């Protein structure tokens, strides 16, 4: 037994030492003197965070129980690191390119920067790692119990006292991690101090374990051969074939997945990695380290089993063997080694998880609800990040503690670790798809992760809690609702398998199938496609700029090619030659900052500042595009789009103008053809009287022997036709003027009854010539309409003479009926002539339409009368319509609105109307 104060004091002193070491390393790294910190050796040692207390203590227990099985835990990582060229190198390269901050960031970044995916992975990681942290707590409390016990070999896990102790340790670890991991916020999430401390711890645990191993083999066992000779006696099966089976393969796969997928491994391998060439060193050094850590596992197990009492906990052989052989100092050293293993894991894991929680869960929420987090515009983000990380660390450790509390006393270390491994292994399909499968989609990744996670939780995580809850125990035995097919450890009746193999089989199968099938069924977004190419083609894009991190290494060829593409060959050559030293060719330009900035300006002139910066940045530094760059590019693209939208708008306006012009053109052509038609009709109408005039004139000229009566007759025909011709020309001009809207007369207050009387009077010769009996009924007197007296007469005369000229009845009649309807003066001209056939109803008001003339008359209308009359009525706000043309006779109706008293007065004196009708305010 070692005294409590000594053990506690040593542990505290060790922690203080770590803190000082981390602090100094941070300061040195900051001042640029951290060469050692950035060395491949430190990187490799930091990778050993893989070896936790589970490895330190638990591997021996595993060897004691399951023989060589423990070796598979080291085989997986070894394979991954030996084959670093194929997988890890790509992972690290992409991690650098994308400035990855965590495994959640990595996967979500590949699948179109999906926030949902990041949250899911964060939650899965927290759930998966919680048992693992509990495992470390368990290891520390148990080892403390052992080292402080007067009867160390007899100590088994005691739950009661340990809970308080575990809580104290968890709290201490939380403080420790917060001190180390969240002292500041670094852009690329590198923690030089932490890495230095972890590397130091790697050395401590390595030396401690080797020391114990040497002591056990040579101090107690009497040499290697003698030790292994006790194997059979101890009941350890050393036959490799006995262990080689599904479980062995499963563990190898799980451990290979874990070295990539464990958040803390990802943190060290990808995020904290300073140079991907360190992988080359780690590829042999790390497996060597693992070999060192495992070489004495089996001997310790054999000696422990053969020398210690049968009730001794194999997981604690590393401590109990020195203790029982009076090597207190070695025991204390071993305890510190185990303590190192546990703390390094807790520190890195909690930091990695806290980054994920704060980056993917807290910050997105805070950005959406700034008020809730006391965030003001552009302020306090750093503070928020630090706070959320500190709280996250506390939260993660608290979860670990709760899990420990609930499962305390439920068994060995190794199974708990394997549950975690199986949990984080669910990331593997998504990561492999991210690296190699271009067509994997966000939905596929989500579906795969979710399926795997659910199956894992059901088949591994839930059963691990079986001891703490009778309901869960019942579920394990009988399945939910007593459905045997759904028993967590025998899904679909697949029983007889090791629970671990069973869980890994189903979860990875479901995970992979969902990923593949959903990916095939869905499409990548634009962002997803872009990122897929960035990931899958990471080497193709930049083989020759692998180490181009500094400006001086900017490959001039690439710069020149790019400049030529953007600026044109001549301009690019001029620019490069201008900066080239005299007498050397253009490509030997030194990439001075002056030259680079000049080039950037030139490029910006062509493609915009943001794009120029991005282009140049890619060639010069080999860095990938940052979000900010993308936003600026998007801004410029947006401007271009706006411009093109304006162009489209202009195009649309032009198109509409064109179509308007086309319509106008069509209309013009219609009008033109109407004009041609009109001219043709006018020509025909003019030719007809001209024909008679010319023909009779020729007769008079050539036939000298005509009688006087013949001569008179011919001359009077010529005269009549001349008059007709003149009238026709007058009417054409009149109609033309009316149609053009010319002001041919001014309207005034007119008595329509008087105009009707005048028209009947004027038409008396025609009506009597045609024997038409005209009847005029009673009519309202003293009405006034707004019209022109002569023009109203013209319309009436036209209607009366038409009724006379075209009436073929034996007893021709014309009935003129006028009346007042509301405020309208209405006159109907009804005859008993041939009427208008229905087919002509639409055309009688057209120009040159003629009714069937009475053949006895030489008089012939121009065919313009009705057209002119209708135009005249329109000019007086009145109308001329054909009322009923069915059967015998036609009826034309004239309507004119009558003037009110006041209007009558105003219309009678147009000059007064201007002032009276202006509607000006009275008190003006």
């Amino acid at each position, binding site marked *: 037994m070692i005294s409590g104060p000594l053990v506690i004091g040593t542990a505290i002193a060790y922690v203080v030492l770590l803190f000082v070491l981390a602090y100094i390393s941070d300061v040195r790294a900051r001042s640029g003197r951290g060469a050692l910190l950035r060395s491949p050796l430190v990187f490799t040692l930091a990778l050993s965070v893989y070896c936790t207390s589970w490895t330190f203590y638990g591997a021996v227990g595993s060897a004691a129980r399951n023989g060589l099985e423990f070796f598979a835990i080291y085989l997986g990582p070894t394979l991954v690191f030996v084959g670093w060229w194929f997988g890890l190198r790509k992972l690290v390269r992409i991690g650098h390119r994308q400035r990855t901050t965590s495994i959640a960031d990595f996967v979500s970044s590949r699948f179109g920067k999906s926030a949902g995916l990041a949250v899911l992975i964060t939650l899965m990681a927290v759930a998966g790692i919680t048992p693992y942290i509990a495992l470390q707590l368990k290891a520390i409390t148990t080892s403390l119990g052992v080292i402080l016990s007067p009867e160390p070999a007899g100590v088994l896990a005691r739950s009661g006292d340990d809970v308080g102790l575990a809580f104290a340790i968890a709290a201490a670890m939380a403080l420790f991690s917060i001190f180390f991991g969240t002292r500041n916020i670094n852009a690329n999430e590198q923690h030089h101090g932490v890495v230095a401390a972890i590397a130091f711890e790697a050395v401590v645990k390595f030396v401690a374990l080797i020391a114990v191993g040497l002591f056990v083999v040579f101090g107690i066992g009497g040499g290697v051969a003698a030790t292994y000779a006790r194997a059979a006696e101890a009941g350890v099966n050393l036959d490799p074939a006995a262990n080689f089976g599904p479980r062995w393969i499963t563990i190898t796969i799980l451990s290979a997945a874990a070295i990539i997928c464990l958040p803390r491994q990802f943190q060290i391998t990808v995020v904290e990695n300073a140079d991907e060439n360190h992988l080359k060193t780690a590829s042999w050094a790390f497996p060597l380290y693992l070999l060192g850590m495992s070489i004495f596992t089996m001997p310790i197990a054999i000696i422990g089993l053969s020398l210690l009492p049968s009730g001794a906990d194999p997981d604690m052989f590393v401590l109990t063997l020195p203790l029982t052989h009076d090597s207190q100092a070695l025991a204390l050293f071993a305890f510190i080694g185990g303590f190192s293993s546990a703390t390094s894991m807790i520190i890195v894991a909690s930091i990695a998880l806290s980054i994920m929680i704060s980056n993917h869960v807290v910050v997105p929420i805070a950005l959406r609800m700034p008020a809730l987090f006391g965030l003001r515009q552009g302020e306090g983000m750093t503070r928020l990040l630090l706070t959320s990380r500190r709280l996250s660390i506390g939260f993660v450790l608290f979860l670990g503690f709760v899990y420990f509390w609930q499962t305390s006393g439920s068994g060995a270390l190794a199974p708990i670790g394997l549950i975690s491994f199986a949990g984080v292994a669910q990331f593997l399909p998504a990561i492999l798809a991210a690296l190699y499968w271009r067509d994997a989609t966000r939905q596929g990744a989500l579906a795969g992760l979710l399926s795997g996670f659910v199956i894992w939780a059901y088949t591994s995580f839930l059963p691990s809690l079986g001891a703490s809850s009778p309901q869960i125990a019942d579920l394990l035995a009988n399945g939910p609702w007593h459905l045997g097919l759904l028993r967590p450890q025998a899904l679909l009746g697949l029983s007889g398998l090791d629970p671990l193999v069973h869980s890994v089989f189903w979860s990875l199968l479901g995970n992979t199938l969902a990923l593949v099938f959903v990916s095939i069924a869905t499409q990548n977004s634009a962002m997803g496609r872009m990122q897929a190419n960035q990931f899958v083609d990471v080497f193709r894009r930049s083989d020759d700029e692998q180490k181009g991190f500094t400006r001086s290494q900017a490959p001039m060829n690439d710069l020149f090619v790019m400049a030529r593409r953007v600026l044109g060959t001549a301009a690019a050559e001029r620019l490069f030659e201008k900066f080239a030293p005299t007498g050397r060719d253009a490509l030997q330009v030194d990439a001075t900052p002056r030259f680079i900035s000049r080039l950037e300006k030139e490029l910006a002139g062509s493609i915009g500042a943001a794009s120029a910066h991005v282009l140049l940045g890619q060639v010069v530094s080999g860095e990938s595009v940052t979000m900010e760059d993308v936003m600026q590019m998007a801004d410029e693209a947006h401007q271009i789009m706006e411009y093109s939208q304006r162009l489209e708008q202009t195009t649309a306006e032009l198109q509409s103008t064109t179509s308007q012009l086309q319509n106008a053109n069509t209309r013009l052509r219609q009008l033109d053809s109407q004009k041609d038609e009109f001219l043709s009709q006018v020509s*025909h109408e003019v030719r007809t009287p001209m*024909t008679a005039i010319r023909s009779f004139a020729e007769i008079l000229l050539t036939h000298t022997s005509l009688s006087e009566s013949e001569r008179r007759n011919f001359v009077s025909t010529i005269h009549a036709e001349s008059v007709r011709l003149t009238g026709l020309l007058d009417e054409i001009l009149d109609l033309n003027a009316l149609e053009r809207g010319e002001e041919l007369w001014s309207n005034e207050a007119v008595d329509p009854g008087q105009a009707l009387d005048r028209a009947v009077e004027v038409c008396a010769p025609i009506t009597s010539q045609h024997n038409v009996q005209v009847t005029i009924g009673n009519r309202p007197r003293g009405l006034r309409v707004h019209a022109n007296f002569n023009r109203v007469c013209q319309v009436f005369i036209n209607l009366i003479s038409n009724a006379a000229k075209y009436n073929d009845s034996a007893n021709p009649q014309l009935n003129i009926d006028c009346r007042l309807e509301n405020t309208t003066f209405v006159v109907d001209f009804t005859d008993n002539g041939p009427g208008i056939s229905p087919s002509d109803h639409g055309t009688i008001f057209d120009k040159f339409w003629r009714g069937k003339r009475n053949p006895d008359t030489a008089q012939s209308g121009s065919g313009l009368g009705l057209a002119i009359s209708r135009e005249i009525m329109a000019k007086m706000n009145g109308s001329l319509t054909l009322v009923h043309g069915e059967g015998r006779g036609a009826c034309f109706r004239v309507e004119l609105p009558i003037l009110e008293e006041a209007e009558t007065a105003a219309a009678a004196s147009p000059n007064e109307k201007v002032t009276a009708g202006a509607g000006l305010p009275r008190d003006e």
Partner: protein
Amino acid sequence: MSSVSTGSDAPIFHPEGPADQAPPDVLIVEDEPAILSSLEFILNHAGWRTRSVQDGEAALSAVNRWHPRMLVLDLMLPKRNGFDVLASLRARSDTRELPILILTAKGQQQDRRTAMELGASAFVTKPYANGDVLEAVASLLGSPVR
């Protein structure tokens, strides 16, 4: 009653001689009274027997009843226009070769072409010189028989 106006209906000059017995040399189809009277005057004075009608329908029945040796045909006519009359006559075997002189104020090339395609024998535009009409009639009928 037929709407055909016989020679006696003509308002001005009426040629002497056998009215209903001998077929006329020229059937004038013209709705303008002044033009009709001038045509009758010059053709009669040149020695041709004429009869006249004033619309397209009358023209077709007059051809059946009087068997004129030729037609002087206006195009713008009431009831059936000149093109219509021309096409109907050309569709019948007995009048396919009947000489038809188109006399119209529609002077456009398109009308002339349409008339010739429909089978018009000659085409004179109004206003015409009297000599042109007489020449055209003479070339279609030969010398007038006195």
